[in-house]
């Protein structure tokens, strides 16, 4: 089975990445398996300065998934470059740096910082985090998103992936604005805004009140958005949201994703990413595909993007 996939000028040995924020910077998973088995690693969001994240409680269970409001706790750019990137660089896998900021300058500083660093394969702009005060700022207005993307574009020649929020009326319009402004690819979806109520304590379970819903519960929403993006836009999409098996991964590929990312599933099963790679290989075979490329958009005949 030909498992390699290409997108935005990058070649991945297989289409399974780990999703940002569910994998730290790879250190914990590396104790369990060889990260080189992965198609790629999307690291936890990196900001210019270190961020503390939100106060606890940050996690709640949800039917078929979970809620989180971590609030992008991260050690900041300098620490990432000095400690985390060198660690990851040692593995033969593609490292995608997820970038966050409170404002355009915040994003730009991180992009400048990682641009040109050995071992960085691509940048993923996280303009869709529902768990920090200004997290959805850029997602809510395609024009603002486009302006950010355009400015980032000037700072780097790395492949630029923009992460799409499901909490918007028109994800395709958002994606189109980003593509227009210079994004090379999109990733979708980030978490859905949600809430859990603690009946005993008479308050929301999560201190931040709302949190991001992820896990199998959101898979239909992710598939719909990936399908719509692939049908309307010429840039490739990395699909995610509720993937916990090779079958789920195949559904995303068939909807029009060039690659997929595994998030919440690693909490239930730390070995989910390598397991899913193996399962996907068998699912492709069973479904009569000779390669990942052949499965691409097989359920989405109007998908636009062609090999990149």
């Amino acid at each position: 089975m030909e498992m390699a996939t290409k997108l935005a000028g990058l070649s991945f040995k297989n289409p399974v990445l780990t999703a940002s924020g569910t994998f730290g910077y790879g250190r914990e998973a590396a104790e369990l398996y060889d990260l080189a088995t992965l198609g790629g690693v999307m690291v936890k969001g990196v900001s210019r300065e270190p961020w503390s994240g939100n106060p606890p409680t940050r996690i709640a269970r949800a039917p078929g998934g979970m809620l989180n409001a971590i609030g992008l706790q991260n050690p900041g750019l300098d620490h990432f470059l000095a400690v985390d990137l060198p660690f990851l660089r040692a593995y033969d896998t593609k490292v995608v740096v997820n970038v966050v900021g409170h404002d355009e300058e915040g994003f730009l500083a991180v992009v400048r910082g990682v641009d040109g660093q050995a071992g960085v394969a691509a940048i993923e702009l996280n303009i869709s985090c529902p768990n920090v005060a200004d997290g959805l700022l850029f997602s809510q207005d395609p024009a603002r998103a486009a302006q950010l993307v355009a400015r980032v574009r000037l700072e780097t020649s790395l492949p630029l992936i923009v992460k799409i929020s499901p909490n918007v009326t028109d994800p395709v319009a958002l994606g189109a604005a980003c593509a227009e402004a210079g994004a090379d690819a999109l990733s979708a979806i980030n978490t859905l805004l949600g809430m859990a109520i603690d009946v005993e304590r008479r308050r929301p379970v999560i201190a931040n009140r709302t949190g991001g819903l992820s896990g199998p519960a959101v898979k239909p929403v992710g598939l719909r958005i990936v399908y719509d993006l692939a049908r309307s836009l010429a840039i490739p999409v990395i699909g995610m949201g509720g993937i916990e098996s090779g079958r789920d991964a195949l559904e995303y590929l068939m909807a029009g994703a060039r690659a997929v990312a595994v998030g919440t599933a690693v909490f239930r099963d730390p070995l989910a990413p390598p397991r899913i790679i193996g399962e996907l290989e068998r699912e492709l075979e069973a479904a009569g595909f000779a390669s990942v490329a052949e499965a691409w958009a097989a359920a989405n005949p109007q998908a636009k993007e062609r090999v990149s």
Partner: protein
Amino acid sequence: MVERLQPAPDCVELVMEFPDDEAPKPGQFYMLSTGDGRDTYLPRPLSFYRTFSPRRMSFLFRVVGPGTQALAALKPRDRLQAMGPLGRGFPVPDQPIRAVLVGGGVGVPPLWSLGRALLERGAKVTALIGARTRSGLLGQAELQALGLEVRTATDDGTRGHRGPVTELLPGLDADQVFACGPEPMLRAVQAFAASRPLPDTYLALEAAMACGYGVCLGCAVERAKPDPELGPYGTYARVCREGPVFRWDEVKF
């Protein structure tokens, strides 16, 4: 799963057989997953309780929600996923100290193996266990069977001291205190450690967890003295990785 015991009306002890024999340290925990129920997507953290052989140990828990309900519904020979041992356990001193263990409600499990380890090193160990009412007192016989002295307290006075179990602390000579239980109890132990002072007092904390192995950053607890090098990033520690056992003065909650 091998056997199911019911030591209190709303508490269950499950004896499990593991495929491997990685010996856990007192205070460490496991992430347990059952089936594919709608409300049990995330695994649930539980401290191990008694160890019977290298591959057989038990878990003792209160049934509070869907995760613990699903665990409590297991029948002998059902299988479940367990990941562990996880986290940093209690530091067990090599000297024969005078140790006091404090367990509130379902905080007792980690004290069993800790008590045993301390006894093996010649310590003099007293265990204080507390609960709201008599039927909620857990592990008394099991801790006594190890050779520990056990004292009890209940909120309603139906057994032992009437009042918080931590009120028994001042009456005891201790070099170190080890505690596990609800937050108010841990706060009282913190205050006690500060007042004596007893610097080597350790607390086993709980937190909502998603992964249990350090990647989600869900299990945050505020650090009392953040490392200035880390800046705001050092505000919180991970209960699952830097804990669940912390020295009393490492954390604020």
